[in-house]
């Protein structure tokens, strides 16, 4: 990415993304949703919850659920090592931690670099994507983290009227 592009962050159409990797793929989420990044530790398991909900952790006195996106996206290799990090995101007044393999970069994408995404498969429906980001040779999957985490299948939020 050129320096000129970085300087025009404030311009309409360009957005900043936090890039992370799950397995061999690169994903990105809107940086404005990110509260902080921390290591994966001390997660208390919750019984009778879906597999991808690892449990809850203490974030300075707040109880925060931890979701492993690798399990959610059915990646084959799921390891917890020193590289494993938790991205703490803020969505709809809730705080949720998502486990990813590695956080790599903060990128600015112009509107023309964002392409509509084709249908992938069942694990990540189109509704949860903002599109695909083109960056030289790299391809970023732009995840709409808010839609994904509040979706019914994530079972993180109780549906209205329940």
């Amino acid at each position, binding site marked *: 990415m050129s320096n000129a592009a970085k300087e025009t962050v404030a311009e309409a159409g360009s957005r900043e993304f936090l890039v992370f990797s799950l397995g061999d793929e690169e994903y990105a989420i809107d940086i404005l949703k990110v509260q902080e990044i921390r290591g994966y530790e*001390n*997660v*208390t*398991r*919750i*019984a*009778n*919850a*879906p597999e991808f909900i690892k*449990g*809850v*952790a*203490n974030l*300075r*006195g*707040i*109880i*925060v*659920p931890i979701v492993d996106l690798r399990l959610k996206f059915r990646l084959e290799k799921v390891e917890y090592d020193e590289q494993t990090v938790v991205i703490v995101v803020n969505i709809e007044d*809730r*705080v*949720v931690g998502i486990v990813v393999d590695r956080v790599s970069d903060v990128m600015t994408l112009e509107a023309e670099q964002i392409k509509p995404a084709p249908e992938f498969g069942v694990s990540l429906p189109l509704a949860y994507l903002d599109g695909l980001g083109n960056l030289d040779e790299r391809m970023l999957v732009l995840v709409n983290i808010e839609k994904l985490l509040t979706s*019914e299948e994530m*079972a*993180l*939020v*109780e*549906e209205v009227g*329940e």
Partner: protein
Amino acid sequence: MDITEFYDTFFEEAGELLLEMETHLLELDLDAPDAEQLNAIFRAAHSIKGGAGTFGFEALQRTTHLLENLLDYTRRGELALRRDIVDIFLEAKDMLNDQLDAYRGGEEPDPEALERICQTLRQLALEELGEDADVGGGAVPEPAPREKQEKNAEPAPQPETASGRHCVALLDMVEKDRQLLVEELAQLGDVERQSGDDSRYEVILQSTVSAADIEAVMCFVAEPEQLQVSALPAAQAAPAATAEKAPPAKAGPPPAEAPAAKKKPAAAAKSGESTSIRVPVSKVDQIINLVGELIITQSMLNQQLESSGSDDGGKLANGLNLLARNARDLQEAVMSVRMVPMDYVFSRFPRLVRDLAGKLDKEVELVTEGKSTELDKGLTEKIIDPLTHLVRNSLDHGIESPERREAAGKSRSGCLTLSAQHQGGNILIEVADDGGGLNREKILARARENGLSAPDSMSDEEVWQLIFAPGFSTAEAVSDVSGRGVGMDVVKRNIQSMGGRVEILSQPGQGTTTRIVLPLTLAILDGMSIRVGTETFILPVTGVIESLQPQPDDLFPMAGGDLLLKVREDYLPLVATHSAMEVDGAETDPTRAIAVIVQGEGRRYALMVDELVGQQQVVVKNLETNYRKVPGVSAATILGDGSVALILDIAGLDRLGQSKKENPIFAAASPARSAQEIELT
């Protein structure tokens, strides 16, 4: 600064004044009314009227004006009090409350209701005094607009003088009150000059606030007619001088009526105010959270120190001990901020009992004990509904009619006692009546009708618990007070949701006592840590009865894989925590595990755990803030090492264990399942 900033203060104060008015009205001895009480009622109405005038709440002002006039007659002995007159006054007080609520919500009060109450009050004046000209009738609508005009007239010149000087004249005021007011004024700006005597004392104030704001600040201390605020533009004093002269003529006469009587209580109220502040509960909760964190951090430090083992002569340990003590003191002090006396709850009942007794044609004397017992503010609000229900029940079903009481050799008037006391970390609230008591046979018969299992061998205590079943009522007739049978189960559920329990004691012919046992606060819980496999859970101590090591002879396998544990005379189902909470590597042999006998929602069972770790107070953290409700778990807490431990929901765990057996492929994650779970809770 904007006058609307004072609205909240006015609403709060007016609300308190109304409550005070009601208390006095209820306490009044009709045959020999206490002059001081009549004065207090009058003053309350008067103060509200003053405030309502200042803020332009016209309906409130009109109603209080009519009420005030009538009260004035009663306090001068020209209107003899009767029960029905007090009823009308109480009705007017309720109306004022409604109006206040409407204004608080930013709406105009219901005009029809306003007309109705005004008409009632005028009618009363007409019938009792025949002086409609003075009290009601044509004279009434006038004062309102007139006073309004006055108020409007003053702010008019403000735009030019808003940041200038004001002359505040205090009329007929004793020195003590005056000093308080001058102090108050000094906070608004610079007091340039003050001079005068008791009858007229002038303060020249250099301030950026408007005259109306100054009035608003002072009107709760001084009577409106004791106060004149006028603007003094630095150079041209001409318009101010006229404004200054105009009000005294009108405001002159009223203070002469009862100057001394009015001022003392005003001063007393003022001194009480200056030592307390109003703080939103959310701010207090935030402090409580932070203190909780402090304590966790402190115990983390302690554990660090123990594991590192390098302490220079124990200095660090000493410091940490001191920190621990200070942190705990701080926590106690902060928790006490949330505590309010039970009087806050009990003070609503005299009115309710009076109204209900009247409706039911019963004579009831209400006794309250332990009014100063303190309880968490959040709990006091939640306890009002269940208590109201119990009081209604006692009056409707418990206490008999005067004739029946006489026939049974009791006094005509029944006695209802509300009491509160502390017992350990709990508060014990009792609603006791000396009525007919519960009828064991009737309850058993009704229970069988409803399809509940009710063998004759049940103990009294168990029989009384039956009335908490949904839809249960033994009342012969459904009245509008109670008897529909919706209620006792709600009472029980409400109290359980607060972490408490309900017990009933009843003696035929002697009366019934309903006892509510509640924890003092919801923010902290006495917890027992248990270990299952490698995981730690917390059980609320209130639900734990005892623990024991099951012997092979005491275990009875049932069909479907259930196990019963014989504890003395009882057979209790054995629920394995590890299967309910899906823990691997836990002890599966009951004889090598520990059985904790717990009670939740009236059902007792044994919970199988690996080890009892210890008892400790834990800070309760809501799981639903960022996640959702988890079956079998009521909340979470943070342990000394900073990790999260789940607090088990005893009643929910029992159901969870049952439903898992019924449905082996059960997965809590399916929305349908969790919906059902939540409904059950």
